[in-house]
């Protein structure tokens, strides 16, 4: 028989103003098993907690009901208080008579009756509670960072500087990510390379960071502290251990292809690096364009390589890493041509996207930083920038705001004026969103000092006429139609998650939203965590982010990892599923419903008479189970139960609530 104590809080007048607290206290005293019942003005205060502690000791209580606010508010408070007084913290239940009762019902009699019911259900629940101990699991103090852009690099550096090993997986042959493609950055107009490349070098030479280039994460098993990650590395056809980075091969390679890094505006060789500052500065062979790999001819690179590093036989490499935490920093893509038929993107060479414009501005880009239009290499005298290309457009594009476009378009117009002083930039926009330190001032400078002409309205059509790109639109502020014969059109295409991000989300068991951005565990209070313990987010994987935000995010995620790694063992919430092996028939229906792959088959050895027999039963991995309880519903034998939310407890609550007080019968 339990010895239960009920503590009813008045919460000042928050509860007592609507609920007759004394009546609830008296009614609770009459419930079998309740040996102590009292009320107090503020149960969460120190004197209130002392009341509870004293009662636990004096009345030898082995179960507590605190009738007060929502468990979201103070469950931890009272569990800790119980623990300090020597009671198992899981022997405490909250009866939420504030948020769910006194604050939402006007009639005092009804509210008091409901509060009594809520307390009775909590007493019945705690009566069936069992003391629980958190399980302790070891952890591997090594982190995996997926994505080598600015966010991934920052996370890797912070974790490595904290003294833990990091594996940084990058799908390309160089780290740097999107930021490496940028020319200058808003609002300071710092050259992106100048602030990025030193960081790239720092990552590469950090003794605690191991780079896995041209690689992808293909499988993830395990749980927080103990992940096993499969990494698949595409062949580079160059032995990077031998290669000295002389780039003679790139010099001599006869095969050229459009450079993806330059958004197709420039050419690269079939063997070589994406850009001269690539880190690691090692070439790869693009197999689709290599004459030797395609046709068995050429092979010049192999012949001239002074260290015999070219290896046409190289195969895909697959290996596993044991890590304790994972940071996802896969960054973003932009909407492609299929979304912008009306803007002529993909049809006219002089309609480009903003990333291509960045390459035109970059001194390491295809035009060495001179703005030339792709069709004929002329310097454009009139440039139209179209903002919200695909953003804030739920019908055809994306419903969300891509957030960074207002600022980079202002930057683009500014850079254009600096480079082409007699040119004119026109910007079609919906709204200017320049929230950020120095951002609004930057946009104003683009307008006032650099002559950007902002036109509020949408573009209806873009077509080619007499070597010009004609942009037809409307200026809704002036109320007139506008037609501009432009030399170059730049689309601020919507920011989207990286291609493949959704598949990776499934591998990681992290939920993504309808657009494919990963969900934070809490959008405000846990912005770098996911609901999967041990998996964290950094940068644009969770939504459009600018560089400072991505870096802040990345450091935040790294701090979370460092906090995790500061433990030698992890404590696991004990409210998890458990199998009653005597009841389990081994049907294993629970296995496919588990979203976390936490249930496995186990051979149970039993002695029947003088013989040993084995039979299969389900077993729950305490490290993986998150306590959703799906398995307990699927179980046909009633063998699977969820600690803290057992079938018996929930049914007892049902019974208690159906005996509502104040009912006419």
């Amino acid at each position, binding site marked *: 028989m339990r010895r239960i104590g009920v503590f009813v809080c008045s919460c000042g007048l928050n509860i007592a103003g609507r609920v007759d607290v004394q009546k609830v206290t008296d009614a609770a005293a009459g419930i079998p098993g309740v040996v102590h019942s009292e009320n107090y003005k503020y149960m969460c205060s120190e004197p209130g907690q002392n009341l509870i502690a004293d009662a636990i000791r004096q009345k030898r209580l082995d179960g507590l009901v605190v009738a007060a606010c*929502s*468990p*979201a508010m103070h469950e931890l408070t009272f569990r800790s208080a119980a623990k300090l007084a020597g009671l198992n913290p899981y022997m405490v239940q909250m009866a*939420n008579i*504030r*948020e*769910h*009762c006194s*604050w*939402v*019902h*006007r*009639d005092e009699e*009804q*509210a008091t*009756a*409901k509060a009594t*019911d*809520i307390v009775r*259900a909590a007493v019945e629940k705690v009566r069936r509670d069992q003391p629980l101990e958190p399980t302790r699991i070891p952890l591997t103090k090594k982190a995996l960072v997926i994505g080598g852009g600015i966010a991934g690099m920052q996370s890797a550096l912070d974790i490595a500087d904290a003294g833990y090993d990091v594996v940084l997986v990058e799908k390309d042959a160089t780290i740097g990510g999107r930021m490496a493609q940028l020319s200058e950055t808003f609002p300071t107009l710092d050259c992106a390379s100048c602030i990025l490349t030193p960081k790239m070098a720092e990552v590469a030479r950090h003794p605690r960071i191991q780079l896995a280039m041209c690689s992808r994460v293909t499988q993830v098993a395990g749980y927080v502290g103990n992940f096993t990650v499969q990494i698949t590395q595409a062949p580079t056809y160059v032995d990077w251990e031998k290669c000295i980075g002389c780039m003679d091969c790139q010099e001599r390679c006869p095969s050229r292809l459009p450079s993806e890094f330059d958004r197709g505006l420039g050419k690269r060789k079939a063997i070589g690096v994406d850009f001269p500052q690539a880190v690691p500065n090692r070439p790869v062979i693009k197999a689709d364009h290599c004459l030797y790999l395609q046709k068995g001819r050429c092979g010049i690179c192999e012949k001239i390589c002074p260290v015999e590093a070219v290896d046409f036989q190289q195969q895909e490499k697959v290996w596993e890493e044991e890590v304790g935490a994972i940071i996802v920093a896969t960054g973003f893509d932009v909407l492609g041509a299929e979304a912008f038929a009306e803007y002529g993107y993909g049809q006219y060479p002089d309609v480009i996207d903003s990333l291509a414009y960045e390459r035109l501005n970059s001194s390491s880009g295809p035009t060495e930083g001179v703005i030339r239009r792709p069709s004929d290499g002329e310097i454009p005298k009139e440039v139209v920038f179209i903002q919200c290309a695909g953003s804030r457009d739920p019908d055809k594009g994306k419903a969300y705001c891509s957030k960074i476009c207002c600022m980079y378009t202002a930057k683009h117009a500014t850079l254009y004026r600096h480079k082409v002083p007699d040119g004119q930039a026109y910007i079609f926009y919906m709204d200017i969103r320049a929230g950020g330190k120095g951002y609004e001032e930057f946009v104003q400078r683009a307008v006032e000092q650099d002559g950007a002409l902002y036109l509020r309205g949408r573009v209806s059509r873009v077509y080619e006429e007499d070597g010009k790109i004609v942009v037809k639109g409307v200026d809704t502020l002036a109320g007139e139609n506008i037609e501009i014969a432009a030399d170059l059109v730049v689309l601020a295409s919507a920011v989207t998650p990286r291609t493949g991000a959704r598949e990776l989300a499934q591998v990681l*068991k992290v*939920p993504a*939203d*309808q657009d494919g951005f990963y*969900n934070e565990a809490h959008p405000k209070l846990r912005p770098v965590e996911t*609901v999967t313990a041990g998996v964290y987010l950094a940068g644009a994987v969770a939504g459009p982010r600018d560089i400072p935000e991505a870096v802040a995010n990345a450091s935040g995620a790294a701090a979370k990892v460092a906090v995790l790694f500061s433990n030698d063992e992890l404590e696991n919430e004990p*409210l998890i599923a458990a199998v009653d092996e005597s009841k389990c028939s081994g049907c294993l229906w629970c296995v496919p*419903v588990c*979203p*976390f792959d936490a249930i496995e088959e186990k051979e149970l050895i039993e002695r029947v008479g003088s013989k040993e027999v084995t039979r299969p039963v389900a077993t729950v991995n305490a490290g993986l189970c*998150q*306590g*959703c*309880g*799906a398995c*307990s*519903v699927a179980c046909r034998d009633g063998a699977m139960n*969820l600690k803290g*939310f057992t*079938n018996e407890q*929930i*049914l007892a*609550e*049902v*019974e208690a*609530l*159906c*005996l*509502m007080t104040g*009912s*006419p019968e």
Partner: protein
Amino acid sequence: MSHDWQPRIVAFACRWCTYAGADLAGTRRMDYPASIRLIRVPCSGRVNPSFVVRAFQRGADGVLVAGCHPGDCHYIEGNLFTRRRYSLVKRLLEYLGMEPERFRVEWISAAEGARFAQVVKEMTEDISQLGPNAKMREQL
């Protein structure tokens, strides 16, 4: 039945979304009928149909199962089980002769306090029209 008869409604509320949504209704001091009693569960996918049947047998006039919107489940896919499971249970209950208004499955997020209050109001009004659950109540 007296005119001030109020139905008793038992709700199974997922702790991440609907329970928090009901908390929000409280924080915002929304006013809704005192007919509802919540049982906190980790996930709407934890709600065994036998819990629902037991509530009706013990005299609940209405039952609500409520959780996160599909796609928002804290446990990735628990509410998808709920959706499938309870589209069947709902039909079963109707087949047994229960009025459909007595049993509802709702997606109410932690931000939807107003929606929680609205659902309680609607259910209370609908069930008040129907009167007490006589169909499945056990005669004790």
